[in-house]
């Protein structure tokens, strides 16, 4: 693995290797040492063209726990906001000797471009691009699912995962459908037809317009953030109607099997896609998702950089 641009870059074997590595790294950092020397002397740049404090901090913690040097290059308060191009920024990072660039960008495909245009030599990790993908989010979700529902090992064969919400604009949904299907899970997408992408019937998943039909046979339900402002583009008539038809409230929580967990990539819109009661219930694993995010990102950086010291 040279870059991580899409969840589709990972076959089942590679995905399980990332999850197993994450589990090992989590165990080591939990047990004793907070920091491993693995990436000492390597430089990881967090290049964020879009605000996302939680993702940036997660990558930063992951890199620091592996003893890497971390440079945060944020769009706000740097040359990027003055309109410096992706290319010029990339050339600057290359001159700084970045071994890995973690990029968050509002344009779909920007990480792909960064990895293939010949501007930089280092590894590229997609930390969310436009409405395309967010592969490390999918990895942390898979890690969380595996830990709760598959004993923390192997793949996700036969696991029934329902993803509900604004699939059209969601990079989390795209990466999760690809990765969870690769790991053997049965994924169902639930959304109003306006919030499903053209061609979704060709994705490796089932599609439903009815959350109540899907919940009783779900081992996990993942709620996607839905912005109330989407109503202005006529994706749905009103926030209230959306919430009634697709929101996860206490009644719907009751329709889930007892072992099922509730996930959300954050940040949540309480009262929109998820009620406060459900968000705070003991079935919700959002806090754990955040913790697992650091472990999974450590594993990704470790696998991209760790084994290749002295290369090139």
């Amino acid at each position: 693995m040279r870059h991580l641009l899409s969840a589709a870059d990972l076959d089942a074997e590679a995905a399980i290797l990332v999850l197993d590595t994450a589990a090992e790294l989590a165990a080591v950092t939990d047990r004793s040492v907070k920091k491993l020397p693995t990436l000492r002397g390597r430089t990881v740049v967090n290049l964020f063209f879009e605000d996302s404090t939680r993702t940036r901090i997660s990558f930063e913690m992951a890199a620091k726990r592996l003893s890497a040097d971390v440079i945060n290059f944020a769009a706000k308060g740097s040359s990027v906001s003055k309109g410096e191009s992706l290319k010029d920024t990339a050339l600057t990072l290359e001159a700084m000797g970045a071994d890995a660039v973690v990029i968050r960008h509002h344009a779909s495909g920007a990480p792909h471009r960064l990895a293939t245009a010949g501007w930089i030599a280092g590894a590229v990790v997609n930390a969310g691009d436009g409405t395309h993908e967010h592969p490390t989010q999918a990895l942390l979700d898979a890690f969380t699912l595996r830990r709760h529902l598959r004993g923390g090992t192997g793949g996700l064969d036969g696991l029934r995962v329902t993803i509900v919400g604004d699939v059209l604009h969601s990079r989390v949904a795209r990466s999760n459908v690809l990765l969870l299907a690769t790991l053997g899970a049965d994924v169902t997408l639930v959304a109003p037809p306006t919030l499903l992408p053209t061609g979704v019937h060709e994705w490796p998943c089932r599609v439903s317009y009815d959350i109540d039909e899907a919940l009783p046979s779900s081992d996990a339900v993942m709620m996607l953030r839905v912005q109330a402002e989407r109503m202005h583009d006529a994706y749905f008539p009103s926030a209230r109607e959306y919430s009634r038809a697709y929101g996860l409230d206490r009644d719907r929580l009751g329709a889930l099997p007892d072992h099922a967990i509730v996930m959300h990539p954050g940040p949540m819109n309480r009262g929109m896609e998820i009620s406060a009661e459900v968000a705070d219930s003991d079935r919700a694993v959002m806090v754990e998702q955040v913790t697992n995010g650091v472990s999974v990102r450590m594993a990704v950086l470790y696998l991209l950089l760790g084994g290749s010291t002295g290369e090139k």
Partner: protein
Amino acid sequence: MSHEATAPETVVLRGARPYGEDQVDIVVRDGVIAELAPPGTGSAAVVVDADGLVALPGLVDLHTHLREPGREDAETVETGSRAAALGGYTAVFAMANTLPVADTAGVVEQVWRLGQEAGLVDVFPVGAVTVGLGGTQLAELGAMAGSAARVRVFSDDGKCVHDAVLMRRALEYVKAFDGVIAQHAQEPRLTEDAQMNEGVLSGVLGLTGWPAVAEESVIARDVLLAHHVGSRLHVCHVSTAGSVDIIRWAKARGIEVTAEVTPHHLLLTEDLVRSYDPVYKVNPPLRTSADVEALWEGLADGTIDVVATDHAPHALEDKDCEWGAAAFGMLGLQTALSVVVQTMLLTGRLDWRGVADRMSVAPARIGRAHGHGAGVQRGATASIVLVDPEATWVVDPEGLASKSRNSPYRGMELPAQVRHVLRAGRITVRDGELAS
């Protein structure tokens, strides 16, 4: 005009094959084809060895962006004329979306004059339909028609004349001077922030879709409007199977509609967008292989009248970036004939007469480009391109004459090479190089 003064009196194109048929000597005298003589019999001071080369009427491009005035960093009338001549063209229509917009007699006369000064191809300016391409007020169409540039083709290309009333009026108004409205068919609301063809792939890549219906719904409306007011309509860069169906239906009903397809829509598909390389970003977007097949069929059966390049040069910084920030458009002038040979001729969908019709005769007729598309025959203006049908070449954007480098064919091997070009009897290209 100066170029005619320097044209040699007599030129013989020895051993050429008009439309790929029997060899002849094409004898050109005073800018006109004087005779088609038996091979080896014509004599003159200037003899061009055209042994076995296919002779076609000089190509005519109904849709070119030359960027001057305003974006001379991307292309000028001069550099675009060079690319056109080397591509086998003797006339191009320059689209109006310059800075300032070609919406007055002054601007179209400037472009016309720059074309004459470059002296390689006739540059026919296209006039804007609406002031500043703003889509709200008719530009002074009559003044442009009556100017020295004699504008007959009007287009807001780059933007769609989406207001139905304005489109109706424009169609009606240009009848007074035998003009035609060339529509860039794109329903604006359905294509806000659109980045690529809408389909399975746009969903996977997370790029905002440009649905076929946004093109087809405008074409459907416009053919009905043209029928209603009895006007000529030309549809720019048809890109979908549905559009071909609608135009075929309209023609069957006797509606005066013509249509063009670009070389890139004949050869390339949306699959290239997987690379996120903006060299493949174009408007309308690359479509599916099913659309491409429908375009082949439409061009072969005459539903689509014309191949037009939509040559759209862009400065490096407008393409060397992420997909969403990149400009739409591709180079096309120097590769068009080769792409048509590859997709239409070598596959048997068109013969050389068909290629000549779609790339010279029909566009000259639609654009009222007098003296062009006259055919390789006695008495016709001697605007001729001589093509080596057996040669192949590998596209290197660095070697193209355009100021820009955004060719989607980089590294591709293409068939057929332009060897010599005559424009009104004067040699503009000799042995694949611009004649000095």
